[in-house]
């Protein structure tokens, strides 16, 4: 296995991007990422694109080929990855494997999703159907299941078993709103108090409108390459991929071994820590899949940062806030930076790359040496975890 490095990273401004179609979003992330890498775009040997549902949101399938052509690289081989909300992490891992195995030297990983579409193109009901088609249609769509209701059920079980409270959920959500207020790429760049979060209308108990991931348009891109090439380009700025993990869990909300822990996350984390030869206590900064306020509390337990059941208390103690001992979701996360589904996992890699390069500006974690990213797709069915490190260590 060859060592793999990130040499370029960029993302679009996230939001309801009425000004941007798929092509524009792709260009907004990919072109600056390639420039950041300091390579000629003709050095890109493959494009791995993460996208959840352009075929329904935008009437566009085969988006990876469209991306290549729209970037002026029509002869580059491409493939699109779909793993629901984990798509970006999975695409990144596949590019990592291809370079580590010696198949390619340089790959562009792109994540893009354009979810806000004009209503004359799609009525609200269809828009909701598309957003929730990552659930088991035969067994769980008939009750009106969506992301919020599935994670709401995991949250209630966790509250029942461990005493986690709504205040803990809101506290963690408020922390991420604060982080997003410092991020010029975030959808909602304003602070929201715990009180306001608790008083906002309920989407699905126990989540209010301030505790759910946002329907977002956005894109993110990273350039991955070999050690030789990376260190030849810009030694100080390259970030090393130290560990990669990919875990599986049940695709059923009901039929699974646990409703309070995601086996996919635990397995992906174990694989990544083992490859990196690092432990949870070595990690300085984290981007994890906070699709709902509760999910972050479960994730930090499943990733090994805190004992099962104690995530809420860990957050209430301030440890996950910028300045705390383990800042989590410095970008603002999925409920504040936004959740353009296929883009999200790649966006996490961009944020952590910037942290390790001391380029995160107001969100910078001092002396960050090791960073971890984590995505979760479907009802905890797919997880990808990556551990990144500074190349000068």
């Amino acid at each position, binding site marked *: 296995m060859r060592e793999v490095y990130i040499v370029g990273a960029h993302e679009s401004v996230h939001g309801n991007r009425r000004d941007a179609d798929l092509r524009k979003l792709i260009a907004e992330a990919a072109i600056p990422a390639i420039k950041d890498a300091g390579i000629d775009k003709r050095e890109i040997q493959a494009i791995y694109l993460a996208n959840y549902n352009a075929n329904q949101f935008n009437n566009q399938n085969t988006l990876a080929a469209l991306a290549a052509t729209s970037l002026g690289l029509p002869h580059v081989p491409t493939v699109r990855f779909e793993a629901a909300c984990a798509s970006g992490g999975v695409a990144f891992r596949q590019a990592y494997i291809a370079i580590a195995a010696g198949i390619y030297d340089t790959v562009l990983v792109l994540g893009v999703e354009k979810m806000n579409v004009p209503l004359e193109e799609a*009525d*609200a*009901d269809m828009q*909701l*159907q598309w957003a929730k088609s990552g659930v088991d*249609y*035969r*067994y*769980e*769509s*008939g*009750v*009106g*299941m969506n992301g*919020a*209701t599935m994670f*709401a*059920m*995991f949250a*209630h*079980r966790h509250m*029942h078993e461990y005493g986690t409270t709504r205040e803990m959920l809101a506290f963690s959500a408020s922390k991420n709103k604060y982080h997003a207020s410092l991020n010029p790429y975030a959808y909602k760049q304003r602070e929201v108090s715990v009180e306001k979060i608790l008083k906002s*209308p*309920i*989407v*699905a*108990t*126990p989540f209010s*409108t301030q505790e759910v991931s946002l329907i977002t348009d956005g894109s993110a891109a990273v350039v991955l390459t070999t050690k030789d090439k990376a260190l030849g380009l810009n030694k100080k700025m390259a970030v090393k991929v130290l560990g990669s993990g990919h875990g599986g869990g*049940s695709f*059923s*909300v*009901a*039929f*699974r071994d646990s*409703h309070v822990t995601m086996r996919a996350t635990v397995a992906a984390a174990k694989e990544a820590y083992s490859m990196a030869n690092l432990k949870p206590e070595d990690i300085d900064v984290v981007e994890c899949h906070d699709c709902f306020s509760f999910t972050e509390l479960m994730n930090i337990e499943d990733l090994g940062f805190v004992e099962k059941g104690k995530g809420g208390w860990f957050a209430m103690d301030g440890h996950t806030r910028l300045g705390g001992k383990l800042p989590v979701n410095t970008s603002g996360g999925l409920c504040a930076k936004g959740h353009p589904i296929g883009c999200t996992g790649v966006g996490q890699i961009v944020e952590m790359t910037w942290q390790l390069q001391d380029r995160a500006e107001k969100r910078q974690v001092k002396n960050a040496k090791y960073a971890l990213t984590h995505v979760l797709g479907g009802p905890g069915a797919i997880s990808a975890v990556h551990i990144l490190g500074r190349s000068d260590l």
Partner: protein
Amino acid sequence: MNIPAIKCGDCGTVHPRGVAVCPACGSEKIQEYEAKGEGEIHTYTVNCFVPAGKFKDRAPYVIAVVRTVENMFLTALVDTESPFNIKIGDKVRFRHYEDPLTPVFELAS
């Protein structure tokens, strides 16, 4: 009311009908079975935000993971006049499939 189900000949798992192999152990020795409809709420949510579609007029309504007395888990609606009073552990019983994809339970007491 019983629930149309399968039972695994190897591990004994009971699961709503429609699977090709046992979802717990992968065994192909599954047989059609009539599962008991009594159970309890393992977890739940009250779905409040439904801007469109067939559940729009029903919201707020309860979606639950029901655990039956035979340890069968399924996602279902729980029909109640007071959705916000629902809690984990409440006893429920199967009423019917409102359509082929939508099992409905009601409170047992």
